[in-house]
């Protein structure tokens, strides 16, 4: 897979690299806390963990401007944090509190904060892809140079929505980047049993757009590939499909669903931890001293504790409160 991590890192500023490290740690610790609180019964409903896939959200969002947009999925905590939603508001949402990013009405799967570029998250697999195309259409019609990223999983590339949306985005040359997080399993079904194409990126061929495969556990490679796609989109040349190969360490949701993945496979992917890879690189290249990274980790621990405290102390919405958000009256 493509770029050599160590040779290309020199072009990236230390500030960006440290922010990547911070965001990846933030997502990891956030998700670990979510698992803990979910099991303790404090977080209700359903939630899907992003542990193991951090390099995709962070690599992609680091290549975007604040006013560029992303659309996220049911497995969206990582995207939200990477694009800049404050962990307090995301945690409060998971708790179902009024202070949450969707006022406690949306829950885990619908994070939206247009001010930081999280314009919508859909929990229907493939559902955000046509909507992303519409956001990109609006950017083009408004003569704005913002780009739009649609995140989705390998499973979404088997939906009709994916194919209709890629076709439309290509014929209209819209500024949208389709980021497929290929974690190889749609719940329990392996891509080898569900995707007819040799590679998901090959599906781009049918729509006459570039299709790129990247190592989704290599934040640098994800970042650089996204930058190219962003530049192409801003130049008005249309969409790109990026297939980022990664792996979720947790099950589909918060429950164990059965032995559909070999233990050795899970362990092998854990050895390829995206955070450890970045850390090793930063240290071996002498970009930062270890204590800088330790300080980042400490800061994240504090932010997570603060987010949980904030969520716990926040008020729950009642039925009358939520009723006011169905219609604009």
């Amino acid at each position: 897979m493509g770029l050599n991590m160590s040779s290309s890192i020199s072009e990236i500023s230390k500030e960006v690299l440290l922010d990547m490290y911070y965001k990846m740690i933030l997502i990891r610790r956030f998700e670990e806390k979510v698992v803990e609180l979910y099991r303790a019964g404090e977080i209700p409903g359903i939630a899907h963990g992003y542990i193991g896939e951090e390099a995709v959200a962070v690599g992609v969002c680091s290549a975007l401007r604040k006013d560029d947009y992303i659309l996220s999925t049911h497995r969206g905590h990582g995207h939200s944090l990477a694009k800049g939603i404050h962990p307090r508001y995301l945690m409060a949402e998971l708790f179902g509190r009024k202070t949450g990013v969707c006022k406690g009405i949306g829950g885990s799967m619908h994070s939206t904060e247009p001010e930081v570029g999280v314009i919508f998250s859909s929990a229907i697999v493939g559902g955000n892809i046509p909507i992303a195309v519409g956001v990109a259409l609006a950017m083009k019609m408004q003569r704005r140079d913002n780009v739009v990223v649609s995140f989705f999983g390998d499973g979404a590339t088997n939906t009709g929505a994916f194919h209709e949306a890629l076709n439309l985005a290509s014929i209209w040359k819209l500024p949208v980047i389709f980021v497929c997080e290929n974690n190889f399993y749609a719940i329990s079904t392996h891509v080898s049993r569900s995707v007819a194409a040799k590679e998901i990126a090959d599906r781009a061929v049918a729509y006459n757009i570039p299709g790129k495969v990247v190592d989704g556990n290599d934040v640098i490679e994800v970042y650089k590939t996204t930058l190219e796609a962003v530049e192409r989109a801003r130049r008005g040349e249309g969409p790109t499909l990026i297939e980022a190969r990664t792996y979720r360490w947790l099950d589909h949701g918060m429950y164990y669903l059965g032995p559909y993945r070999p233990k050795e496979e899970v362990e092998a992917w854990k050895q390829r931890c995206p955070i450890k890879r970045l850390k090793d690189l930063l240290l071996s290249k002498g970009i930062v001293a270890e204590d800088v990274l330790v300080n980042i980790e400490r800061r994240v621990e504090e932010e997570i504790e603060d987010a949980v405290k904030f969520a716990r102390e926040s008020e729950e919405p009642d039925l009358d409160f939520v009723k006011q958000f169905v219609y604009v009256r």
Partner: protein
Amino acid sequence: MMAAREITYAQALNEALREEMRRDERVFLMGEDIGIIGGVFKVTQGLYEEFGPERVRDTPISETAIVGAAIGAAIAGMRPVAEIMYMDFLMCAGDQLINHLPKIRFMTGGKLKVPAVIRTQYGLYRYAAAQHSQFYPAFLMNIPGFYIEVPSTPYDAKGLLKSAIRDENPDIFIECAALYRIKGPVPEDEYLIPLGQADIKREGNDVTVFALSYMVHVALSAAKKLEAEGISVEVVDPRTLNPFDKRTLIESVKKTGRLVIIEPDHKTAGVGAEVAAIVAEEAYEYLNAPVIRLAAEDIPPPFSPKAYNAFLPNEEKLINAIKKVMKYKR
């Protein structure tokens, strides 16, 4: 005052689109065959020429992408009016239509609004069989989160469409193919019709006929004939199903004490079922006779014109039903 000019329902819709596109540059159209040929029903005729391919967009046959892109454009500040050629094809976009369009504002705690209009039509009397004739407004009425317009006249079509485009909520705007060529008075001057206001199309004292979409015309014709027999019929046209104007319905039933419903959708769990339930809950003591519902049979629309005509309610059935409620004695 000068009598208003008469134009067709299709022309009235065309004027609404043209005026709103001139008024607000965020308004744009997309749909199958709406541009170069002006739509298969000619509703968008001339708009491609006036506004160009950027604002009148011919799309691929991709209903999911059409409705999805309309949603995306709307949340990003545009005012899309998407056309789905036949109501039957709405369900090709079922996920965007049901899981996204009416949910987005709510799920985001009011952070987003989706001012998109989805225009469609049902193929009444087109003899086009079961995949080009469906009308299922009650199913949509059962989904909170979007408004539903069902105009029956050129006047209502224009005023409601303009209001729907300006409204901040998503709308499903359901036209009727059998009405496109009917003519009616439409003022030259601009006007809007508030969403959620039923219209009494004819005043009467003896029986209320709640008539939906095309059936308003059937009801008006029946009312005229019954007038000669001394029966005074009031015709209530809901115009929008969401918001639903309960008050006009209830007030009419309180006045007449009798209710007959005529609707071109299926009977079981149809719009009339909801209307009858509202009246049972809120005006039961005013009823002098049981409510009668006349609706399409509970079978898919057949092709055979003979069978199809019998499958729908009609004027004769309505007149008989009205006479029946008039004769009813407790």
